[in-house]
């Protein structure tokens, strides 16, 4: 009973954070609302017995991704039209899309067979020890492959960005020379 209560509270917190993201104007406040949503989701994972996922949610998402995002917000504090006008002209289309997509997903869930509750052994299975053993025994190769692919993608993106940066710098130098 109390588990269901806390699960509902954290689920409500996650959804309220997501809704607040729509109405907050400053990107920093939007980031704080998203952090609240992510922490609520981490609490839900912990309640489900998925301790590994809860830890990674806090470490990777809140600790790395959102901190990086906050740095970007501090670097780009541009007060242009995107700050004064929160919503794009697609607001009405987005509201209709929200109702339609939300309705389709919810009706699909409600019309389908009721999904059975989770297995009781999840807490033992997804604690750090068993997860680490399974990860290093059976899944290390997949992780290494994913890491290599991501490294290649990062190097390629960095190379493209460097080419663009040099072309911008060259154009700026030529413009200054023409101006002078």
């Amino acid at each position: 009973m109390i588990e269901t209560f806390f699960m509902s509270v954290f689920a409500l917190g996650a959804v309220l954070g997501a809704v607040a993201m729509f109405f907050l104007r400053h990107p920093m406040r939007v980031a704080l609302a998203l952090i609240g949503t992510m922490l609520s989701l981490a609490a839900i994972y912990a309640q489900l017995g998925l301790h590994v996922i809860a830890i990674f949610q806090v470490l990777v998402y809140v600790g790395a991704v959102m901190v990086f995002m906050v740095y970007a917000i501090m670097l780009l504090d541009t007060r242009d039209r995107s700050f004064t006008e929160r919503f794009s002209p697609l607001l009405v289309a987005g509201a209709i899309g929200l109702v339609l997509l939300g309705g389709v997903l919810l009706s699909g869930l409600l019309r389908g067979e009721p999904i059975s509750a989770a297995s009781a052994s999840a807490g033992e299975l997804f604690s750090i020890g068993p997860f680490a053993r399974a990860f290093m025994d059976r899944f290390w190769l997949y992780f290494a492959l994913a890491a290599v692919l991501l490294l290649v993608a990062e190097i390629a993106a960095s190379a493209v960005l460097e080419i663009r940066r040099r072309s911008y710098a060259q154009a700026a130098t030529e413009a200054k020379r023409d101006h002078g």
Partner: protein
Amino acid sequence: MADTTFLLAVSGLLFTLGLVGVIVRRNLLVILMFLELMLNGVILSLAVFTQMVGAEAGAVLVFLVFVVAAAEIAIAVPILLLLVRAGHSLDPGAYGGLKG
């Protein structure tokens, strides 16, 4: 134990809110954050199904999605920084002339 259907509904709601936020908001940084919200909705459904099945492979898949999300943001933010340095605006409408 909470009803799994309830958590899947929350997951669908988060995904829907994220998708609509990408469409209706005007700030590029906020749009990136709504993309993260969509990914969080998907990860919640994946975690719920993982717990239902009780397979470690699901948790490993969630971990890989976390890694990919971190790499994605590590590429997206520098691209955004470069874009804003060139265009001096966070409004996607200011970049209507982008090709390809």
